[in-house]
């Protein structure tokens, strides 16, 4: 079925700053969803709190716009009871790597049937520029006024350490690559993790569009085989003059998605507006 990307348009003011990387990411996502023949009502975006999370308010679809850092558990619950929806989780680096870090470990472990996009601007945008776990060492922010004493977290390396089902990095300035990765991730059962680098012209004056643009390269184009976990791990350690992007890892022996692992065949019957009293007579009578 062909779906017009305009179906995803929403007649609402977009509250991001001009020049923000989020625009490009949203653009790619809308096109990818439409390209897959998905209508807005077949998609559920579970969004975190932050500029990235606002994305769920900026295009038409089902959205659960939840608490800061809690998008993955909400997506887990929703995905277990409804397998008709294509579920995405969308949030920022603070949302996902600081407040929500624990859920990320366990979403990967469970292999939940969700594509998770982390819009990684290496800063807290919405709350006006504090350091995030991925902020560069020495950057001055309102919470690191003497310069960040820590090195940034490497989410790709961490997710490879967790041997997550699908691990990728992209850049808002490379729409084609991002589109390809998203497209692929949305057609897989299980968990897909995509760290998306993007500029925040308002607060991150170091990792600008240009800064990224000059550094990113595509590992798959250069021959990296996503089935090779060890090489992926080696590549993931690179950060600085050159920044590897692309699909680092796709499990060559994929585990079943979480829904299947937990529910087996019976998932379809779990939800829906109708509900009949369960037959618990047999269970009750075990106590007689």
């Amino acid at each position, binding site marked *: 079925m062909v779906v017009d990307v305009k179906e995803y348009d929403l007649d609402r003011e977009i509250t991001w700053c001009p020049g923000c990387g989020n625009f490009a990411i949203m653009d790619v996502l809308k096109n990818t969803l439409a390209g897959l023949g998905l209508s807005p009502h077949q998609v559920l975006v579970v969004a975190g709190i932050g500029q990235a999370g606002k994305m769920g308010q900026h295009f038409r679809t089902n959205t659960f*716009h939840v608490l800061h850092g809690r998008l993955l558990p909400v997506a887990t*619950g929703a995905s277990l009871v*409804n397998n008709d929806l294509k579920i995405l989780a969308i949030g920022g680096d603070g949302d996902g790597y600081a407040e929500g870090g624990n859920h990320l470990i366990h979403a990967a472990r469970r292999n939940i049937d969700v594509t998770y996009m982390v819009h990684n601007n290496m800063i807290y945008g919405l709350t006006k520029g504090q350091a995030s776990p991925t902020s560069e060492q020495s950057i001055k922010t309102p919470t690191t006024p003497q310069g960040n004493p820590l090195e940034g977290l490497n989410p790709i390396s961490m997710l490879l350490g967790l041997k997550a089902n699908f691990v990728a990095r992209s850049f808002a300035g490379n729409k084609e690559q991002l589109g390809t990765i998203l497209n692929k991730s949305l057609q897989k059962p299980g968990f897909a993790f995509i760290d998306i680098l993007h500029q925040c012209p308002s607060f991150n004056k170091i990792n600008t569009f240009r800064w990224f643009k000059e550094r990113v390269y595509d590992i798959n184009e250069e021959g990296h085989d996503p089935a090779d976990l060890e090489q992926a791990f080696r590549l993931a350690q690179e950060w600085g003059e050159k920044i590897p992007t692309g699909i680092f890892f796709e499990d060559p022996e994929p585990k079943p998605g979480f829904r299947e692992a937990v529910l087996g065949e019976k998932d379809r019957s779990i939800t*829906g507006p109708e509900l009949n009293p369960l037959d618990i007579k047999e269970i009750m009578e075990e*106590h*007689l």
Partner: protein
Amino acid sequence: MDIHDYSVKVGGEAGQGINTIASILSRSFADQGLHLFAYQDYYSRVRGGHNFYQVRTATFPVYTFSDRLEVLVALDKASIDLHASELNPGGVIIYDQDIKTDDPGQNALALPMAALGKEHGGKAVMGNSVAAGAAWQVMGGDLEILENTLGRLFQIKGSDISEANIKAARAGADYANNNFSGHCRCQLQKGKSKKSLVLTGNEALALGSLAAGCRFVSSYPMTPASGVMQYMARQTHRLPLAFEQAEDEIAAINMSIGAANAGARAMVATSGSGFSLMVEGLSLAGMNETPVVIVLGQRPGPATGLATRTEQGDLLFSLHAGNGEFPRAIFAPRTAEEAFWTAAEAFNVAEKYQIPVFVMSDQHLADSYYTMEPFDLNKVTIDRGHVLDDEELEQMKAYHRYKITDSGISPRAFPGQGGKCVMVPGNEHMENGYSTEDPVNRTRMQDKRIRKHRSMSGEVKPPESYGKNDPGTVLLTWGSSYGSCREAVDEANRQGEKWQVLSLPQLWPFPGKQVLDLIGKAKRVVSVEMNATGQLGRLLRLETGRQPDLAVLKYDGRPMNAGYVLSQVEKGGVFPW
């Protein structure tokens, strides 16, 4: 049939099998047609320590435990040292022969548990069945009933094991028959009850939730609430039910919120610290109007407190928990039987009003066994409130999840239904769910949500009076403390007093007017609860201005009973306010 009221205590170290012995006896009492109440006292450790299980059985319904025993089954020396004094005159001690202890006297039986277990059942652990058999014999129970119980309890482990246990129990009974020379004042008769269920509060809560069509449970283990999720986890293979042990309590409540908004009845079960971690999620459920049921099995706090003990210390916390202001309902079943119906009803209230609903229990209710008649499952109704069907949605131009209505309740729909999109937000929002900071909208939305409190207030489960009319003394209570108050009132009235229990199966919205009416002209209102600050008493004042005249409190982690209530009232109780 005479009136009987007997108590048996089984004491020993963690891991010695006191639960097994007590379960065998409990089930058998029930099958003799008797009522029972059985409670556990255990330490937060896996092996060692001194634990006990106390089973009270009677020809009439019982709601709490008794201070005095007829039979003590002792698996360790501490059981004799600590509990022999609790025996009524003529009580019997049955003790493991391997314990190093002085002979407790004539009315005692030293039982070679391990030896008989090994000899007749093939394994030393069968000593548990030996002990059950011996106790049963001494109490004059019908051996066939005991054998039936054993057969059923061990059935899952295979017919070999259940046969072996039956043999071991018979050996214990024979041994007692031949070697017990004393007399036991407890001589069991057949009771009149029909075949009854034996359930703990936790089991009843789980069963009620299943009956209500709960489709999703996510929780993190925490005593004393784990029993609820574990019971439900065991049923997932035969019901359309998803269970997941979350990585933490934050994930648990947020998973349930996700499931509920995707269309499933969803719940969590937790306790103390675990609930503290759910408070942010609770507030989200308040904002995005998610029906979610929270079973809160209370234990003593603060912090990790006393992990395996009992308290009713989280009433005002659960009432006020969560940033911002939003409606909720709080139920507190008083018995296991009520726990079943409360759980079933909680989902209806949650969905009808689209709010978080608490079902408060406490360790004493959660872990204690009660007998009750089988539930008439036809009486379980499922009311999902106003949920739109696909057709209705298809006819709409757009779906507005938070439509403002007089009742405050907006028609629900789930993502994907009828080709519509659903927006469920955590920020303040317009009727369509999208964020706005508009001040007029804010006031209207906050009013809408709060109106649900008023809509709900007309349907509160009413407070219940038991005892004399026009009472001089009213015991105001909630939760498992009800049982103790009820028996205290019976006792006081037997002694010519005019007492009444006024208990609240639902604490929020608070039925203030009804409570005041029921208190009527009583001379004395005594609030009775398991905490240190008299929270129900405080709630009474907050909601009605009236203050209890006296409080009977207990907060040592151990349950109260009728005797405690009576003696505290006599002493003048405390007045913590």
